[in-house]
């Protein structure tokens, strides 16, 4: 183990680190938006769109990100649709994450108890009012643990971007190992890189989960 080698590699890892963060951030925001839209289609049973959302969720959840990326990056250009690697990565991550988020929101909405829904109906709330005042506020709190798990999952999935040569953390490490044959040092930095992102994040999300649990529930 050589500190000099680690030190020399830090600027490159720094770039990879920032790229991992950035791609994760965009991917997670996009996933939440796509997931929310799909779960709303499903909740309100919007004709046609709700079936489309269900098919999308099943396809996306049951196939690996790696193949989704290969499709976007290698197969689509053949039929004339071409994106850069980073855009492919973001689209792929949103395609994958959207279904996970949709399942999280839907699980939250379905988790609101039957008694709550009936109480809302009993005071004459319309379907939309019921959603707005009863199901959504409670459903979102109930979906926080799933959201937290999805966020961490999606950040880790960015490591797969290495297969289409996006220079994020994992790709940076593999490149360096390939060039200089020093695996111990680079792997150590790589693991620390992910730990810096994921350990604090998972602590924050656990605290948030607890707050939500003790805050909103206990009817």
């Amino acid at each position, binding site marked *: 183990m050589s500190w000099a080698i680690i030190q020399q590699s830090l600027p490159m890892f720094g770039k990879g680190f920032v790229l991992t963060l950035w791609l994760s951030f965009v991917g997670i925001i996009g996933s939440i938006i796509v997931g929310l839209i799909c779960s709303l289609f499903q909740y309100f049973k919007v004709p046609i769109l709700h079936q489309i959302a269900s098919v999308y969720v099943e396809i996306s959840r049951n196939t690996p990100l790696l193949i989704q990326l290969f499709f976007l990056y290698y197969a689509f250009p053949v039929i004339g649709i071409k994106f850069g690697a980073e855009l492919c990565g973001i689209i792929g991550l949103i395609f994958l994450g959207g279904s996970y988020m949709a399942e999280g929101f839907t699980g939250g909405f379905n988790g609101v108890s039957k008694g709550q829904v*009936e109480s809302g109906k*009993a*005071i*004459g*709330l319309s379907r939309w009012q019921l959603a707005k005042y009863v199901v959504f506020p409670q459903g979102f709190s109930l979906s926080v643990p799933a959201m937290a798990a999805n966020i961490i999952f999606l950040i880790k999935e960015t490591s797969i971007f290495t297969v289409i040569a996006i220079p994020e953390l994992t790709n940076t490490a593999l490149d360096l190992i390939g060039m200089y044959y020093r695996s111990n040092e680079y792997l150590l930095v790589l693991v620390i890189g992910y730990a810096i992102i994921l350990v604090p994040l998972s602590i924050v999300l656990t605290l948030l989960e607890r707050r939500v649990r003790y805050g*909103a529930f206990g009817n």
Partner: protein
Amino acid sequence: MAEKVLQVEHLEKSYQKKHVLHDINFSVAQGEVVTLLGPSGSGKSTLIRCLNGLEVYQKGTITFEGQKIIPTEKNWQQIRQKIGMVFQSYDLFPNLTVMDNILLGPTKVQKKDKATARSEALALLKSVELDDYANAYPRELSGGQKQRVAIVRALALHPDFMLFDEVTASLDPEMVRGVLTIIENLANRDNMTMIVVTHEMNFAKQIADRVLFLQDGRILEQTPSEQFFTAPQTDRAKVFLDSMDF
């Protein structure tokens, strides 16, 4: 004979293969208090839930205030403002304060002016001795207090008719009295028309004008209260009364 507020004719209900209500016929007059009694699983709760559109029924008609109800969700939304309902599980909305729980119906459904609705709500809370809790969240309340708020939440819509479904069944014994007193006052003082499902026999005896006795999804007898508790017409009702401890 007072005016019939609610009339149920030939109501039939089944879940998949199980037939749970058979040819239910009865009516309720203005100001009358009807209690539904019967062993558990007899269909009392299902019946009272049908009257608020929470269960789908296959046959029969329900007529409310002279209007035959066409059972669509939209129609029920209108009718539920006239027929209040309180549940065993009280189910206050945990994300809203006591006051907002009560105001939701009047301000959002009935579009009442917020200030008026609020002063009405406060008066109602005062009548159940909970005006100090207006800004509390449901989790800060005991079960009995929650149930009192749930009753206020239903009353805030100024319903003509109230349905109470086992409202004391999940309360600690010492909380039961307070809730029952509110219902009694509602019946005696405010002359509210209501249907009450309960296991509290003394309460039923005291409050009911008439008893509907259900078993296996059928109404076996409809008798004025005094007569039901002293001289029931059917053997099944006798057995039922003997089994109850009161």
